[in-house]
């Protein structure tokens, strides 16, 4: 296969897409899909998460190992399979055998792991599981990888190929059924058909809003205009969200195919992928994939010999959170400062360069090809009455297994946290989960059994958002959480509209006054009280009047935490206490006179000179000067300092 010239190769794979019989490919297909292999293959999870965990060093170590042992094997970089907590993940597939997956393979234990793999003598703590390859033999006593609790309840449509195939090979993507959806679209359907299918499938925008995708496309299709645009919003900016990054790094062609289908559906000839510049690997993979697709005639003029042409461009975002808002994103592509425009007109009517424009998120596009291939009914059979299909979530926070999952809509949050993610770390108590990023809200114990659905989440004061799930345990202070998000929003507000720009900043200041050191006596207490009285009113006005969704949802973290954890706020305000000791300024320390030896160490280390005392006699803390940093407690050699 590798020896074929480019034209021949293109013909073979285009035939495969078109379903033409071709002897050469049929013989090779099993090899391309690696159901049959001639030499061992070592797969390394080298998405951004894997690389962060040291995958690059692991790869070097693997190559050294193979060289030293004179083993002829291929080393392949794949995307993220989802189990980010145990990266770097290395899979080994020997000819005729199943693919076996190892966790936490650092450069230090590579030799040990590969010894295990090549000798088939495994140690349980290193092995994750085995992945069935065709009809190959199973390893005994090794669990099925996809039957692991982390995977068992998942349903992978968007992430189907992630972590399994080589993201830089278009041939593999095609061998696994890629671009058939695009071919079917171009040969069997009209634009209106495709919009119908997508509408019937019940696919809704995965970027947060949940607007029916088919409906949006139809509006754009109905616009009479000689130029329309398609934009993929890959400006993933929520803290704790990395779904789009992983999806692009692991399977870039799925996005390109989905966009090409969407472009056909609305009549767009030019598309943009707006992606943050902080995602260099995803951008690199996209560039490779786009170049490959162009060579095979899957992008550009007359795609697959049809009359349909579609050119795709990458536009890198400079890192402003607000550019994830669609009209700000449009401004940014046009070369202006990323600031939202009033809607209406909606982009589907007048968007980029004032032309009809459809903007969807990465995950939305990644669903499209599968829907075309398998039909609207297949897709709508997954999920609930109002929310169809699956949703990808990025799990982070105080759970055992952080990572990326794709679950059918309707799965409960309890199931995600306790079945899939393995529950709370260190056997702490669950407190809340923040869903939907800075625009979302908290879900508490009492609502853990609600299903993941656009509507049900809104009902409890949260929202689907793009898919970040941050889990918090009993050690998290909810006022501090609200403060974190408020700080994020007031820094990332574009500064255009007054309620968002000025209001979020005042809200942050009020939260800061609640969590900062009690100073100034009664008057300060009164000011604090006045501030709190303002919080809810400010929140209402900001929600009611802000220009874009960023501002309209900016008060959500406060409103949500205030709703579910009002007692924590009251404790901060009235008792001047933070039960979790997160708000350091509210912490108080005391020196136990019996235990203090007067060594003076604490007084020397104290950054605010708040500790006084003479040598060899017990010291004292001046509360007014103390900032609650805890340095004294950490430095004391005699356990003479306690937090009260």
């Amino acid at each position, binding site marked *: 296969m590798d020896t074929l010239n480019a034209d021949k190769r293109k013909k073979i794979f285009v035939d495969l897409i078109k379903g033409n019989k071709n002897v050469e490919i049929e013989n090779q297909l099993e090899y391309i899909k690696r159901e049959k292999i001639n030499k061992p293959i070592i797969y390394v999870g080298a998405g951004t998460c894997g690389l962060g965990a040291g995958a690059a060093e692991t790869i070097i170590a693997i190559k050294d190992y193979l060289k030293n042992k004179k083993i002829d094997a291929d080393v392949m970089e794949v995307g993220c399979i989802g189990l980010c907590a145990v990266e770097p993940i290395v899979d080994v597939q020997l000819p005729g055998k199943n693919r076996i997956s190892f966790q936490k393979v650092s450069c230090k234990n590579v030799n040990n792991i590969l010894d295990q793999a090549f000798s088939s003598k495994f140690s349980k703590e290193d092995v994750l599981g085995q992945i069935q390859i065709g009809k190959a033999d199973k390893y005994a006593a090794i669990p099925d990888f996809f039957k692991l609790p982390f995977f068992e309840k998942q349903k992978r449509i968007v992430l189907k190929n992630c972590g399994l195939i080589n993201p830089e090979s278009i041939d593999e993507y095609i061998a696994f059924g890629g671009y058939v959806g695009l071919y079917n679209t171009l040969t069997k359907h009209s634009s209106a058909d495709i919009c119908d299918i997508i509408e019937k499938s019940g696919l809704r925008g995965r970027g947060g809003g949940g607007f029916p995708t088919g409906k949006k496309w139809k509006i754009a299709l109905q616009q009479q205009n000689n130029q329309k645009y398609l934009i993929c919003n890959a400006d993933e900016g929520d803290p704790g969200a990395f779904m789009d990054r992983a999806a692009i790094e692991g399977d870039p062609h799925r996005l390109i195919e989905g966009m090409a289908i969407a472009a056909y559906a609305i009549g767009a000839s030019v598309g943009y992928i707006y992606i943050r510049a902080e995602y260099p690997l995803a951008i690199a993979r996209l560039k490779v994939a786009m170049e490959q697709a162009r060579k095979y005639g899957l992008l550009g003029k007359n795609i697959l010999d049809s009359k349909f042409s579609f050119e795709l461009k990458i536009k890198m975002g400079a890192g402003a959170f607000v550019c994830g808002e669609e009209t700000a994103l449009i401004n940014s592509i046009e070369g202006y400062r990323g600031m939202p425009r009033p809607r209406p007109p909606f982009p589907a009517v007048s968007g980029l360069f004032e032309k009809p424009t459809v903007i969807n998120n990465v995950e939305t596009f990644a669903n499209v090809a599968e829907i075309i291939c398998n039909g609207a009914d297949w897709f709508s059979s997954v999920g609930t009455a109002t929310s169809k299909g699956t949703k990808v979530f990025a799990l982070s926070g105080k759970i055992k297994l952080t990572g990326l999952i794709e679950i059918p809509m309707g799965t409960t949050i309890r199931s995600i946290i306790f079945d899939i993610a393995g529950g709370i770390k260190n056997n702490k108590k669950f407190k809340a989960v923040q869903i939907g990023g800075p625009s979302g809200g908290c879900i508490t114990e009492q609502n853990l059994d609600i299903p993941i659905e656009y509507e049900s989440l809104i009902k409890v004061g949260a929202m689907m958002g793009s898919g970040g799930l941050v889990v918090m345990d009993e050690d998290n202070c909810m006022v501090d959480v609200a403060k974190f998000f408020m700080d994020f929003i007031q820094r990332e507000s574009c500064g255009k509209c007054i309620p968002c720009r000025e209001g979020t900043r005042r809200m942050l200041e009020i939260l800061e006054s609640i969590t900062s050191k009690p100073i100034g006596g009664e008057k300060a207490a009164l000011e604090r009280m006045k501030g709190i009285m303002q919080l809810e009113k400010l929140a209402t*006005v900001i929600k009611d009047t802000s220009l874009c969704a960023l501002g309209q949802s900016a008060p959500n973290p406060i409103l949500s935490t205030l709703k579910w954890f009002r007692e924590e706020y009251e404790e901060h305000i009235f008792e001047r206490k933070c039960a979790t000791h997160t708000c350091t300024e509210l912490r108080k320390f005391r020196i136990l006179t019996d235990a203090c030896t007067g060594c003076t160490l604490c007084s020397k280390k104290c950054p605010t000179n708040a500790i006084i005392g003479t040598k060899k006699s017990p010291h004292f803390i001046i509360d007014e000067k103390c900032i609650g940093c805890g340095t004294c407690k950490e430095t004391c050699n005699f356990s003479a300092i306690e937090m009260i």
Partner: protein
Amino acid sequence: MSIQIEVNGKKIEAFEGETILTVLKRNAIRVPTLCHMNDFIPSGACRLCVVEIVGSPKLVSSCSYPVADGMKILTNSPRVIESRKTIIELLLSNHPDDCLYCIRNNNCELQSLAKEYHVIERRINGKKNSFKLDHAGTSIVRDPEKCILCGRCVRICEETMGVSAIEYVNRGSKTVIGTTMQKGLNTSSCVNCGQCIMVCPTGALTEKNQTHLVQDALQQKNKTLVVQYAPSISVSLAEEFGMPPGTDINGLLNAALRKMGFKYVFDTTFGADLTIMEEAAELIDRITKGKILPMFTSCCPAWVKYAEEFAPDFLDNLSTCKSPQQMTGAVIKSYFAEISNLKPEEIISVSIMPCTAKKFEMQRDTMGRNGYKDVDIAITTRELIELIRLNGIDMKSIIPEITDSPMGVRSSAGKIFGATGGVMEAALRTAYKSLTGDELTNFKINAVRGFQGRKETKIKINNLEIGIAVVSGLANAALLIDEIRNGRKDIHFIEVMTCPGGCIAGGGQRIGVDRSVIEARMKSLYDIDDRETIKVSHKNPEIIELYDNYFEHPLSHKSHELLHTCYIKRDVLL
């Protein structure tokens, strides 16, 4: 298509495609706005124009939201009022709060709104942003602390002027309007037109105020104080003193300036006539001798700077004539000084202009000689009003006086310089006479009058068909320049005014006047033209005298020395 909507329970007719704000305005329902600008696409930034649509979960901004049949709107429900009030309070919580020390006191939109919405208590407190004053430019001072980020200045600078000297900088609560790399206006592309000041709702943008320099000068007993005022000035300040907008108060102005202490009061309109003599001669010279065409006017200093920055390939197309301000200034310190037995350095020459860019123009290197400047201090209409008040002059009771010789008589052709198209019209009247020997039968050239951003026509002089264009608003000039760059050859003479409408709407004029006032000013200028007998510059007796006694003829050696200038390509931070 006509549709019906309901506003505050009352049925109102509206048309499809209109915004709610348009319909409300037509029906005399006031909605406050801060970012809204007529004839601009709504930006939706200030959120003050929010109204409630019954059944809609959120308030909508009426400036951008289109009406729909059957829509029920509440413009002053408690929810709406409370929201607007909170927005105003939020702005005030980050505002310096020094109204009494602000040049815009009593003429500030934020101040009025605070009063309108009964803000009488500081309910929202917090840290205020601290920024440095940008007074690096010659004409405009920016105070970002007073800025409420409505974005009007940014938009007029970009969309009307195509200059983009200022833009939003930073994000979130640290957002501020700034220049390139925050280096200050002097290194930016700012052309000093001052239109940003005209649209600024607060005191964040002001002219570089030089009233104190004038006050100081008036105390210098060993100097001769000479003042000139531009053609548009006398029709631009009547309403300030309780007279109908557009009233020509040139007699009162002469009296007031003398009361203030100026020894000689000249009319820049005389300089305008002089400019026409030179410029018409230059045009004829260029056309008949096959020199570089089209010729652009050069009396607008903001346009000149713009050309130096953005169209350096057209600098040879700019007329070499100085502006009326500078010509008058040059004559004051040469001919006038000679006949009055004064040394140029004994004269302090003040000009009153509708313009902030004149402060830049007067300090250009070529605008003086032997160490003195043609004009020493250039102030705006606004500064003039301040001086009148400061010096306790009661405009209503003073007796009109006439201007001084030798620069007091003017033609009405010079007077219409104040409106867009005026320079063109005046120049053509004189050019026609020069080329044909006859006067025009009808002096009115209607095709170049009016407020449109671009006006074009063809004029036949002898067998020569001259293509002329008049543009105001530099973005319009940029479009025309591009057409010429792309090969357009049918235009020979182009008048460019930076401010839309010309000097009557200049960046130094009174702030906060509406369109009808500007229209009254324009009408007043053309009424003067209708009324007066000397309608062409070349018949101005003092102009004739000046040439006879001093310059000999237009484009003479002496006039080149005193009345013409040159331009340089300018590198600025973009």
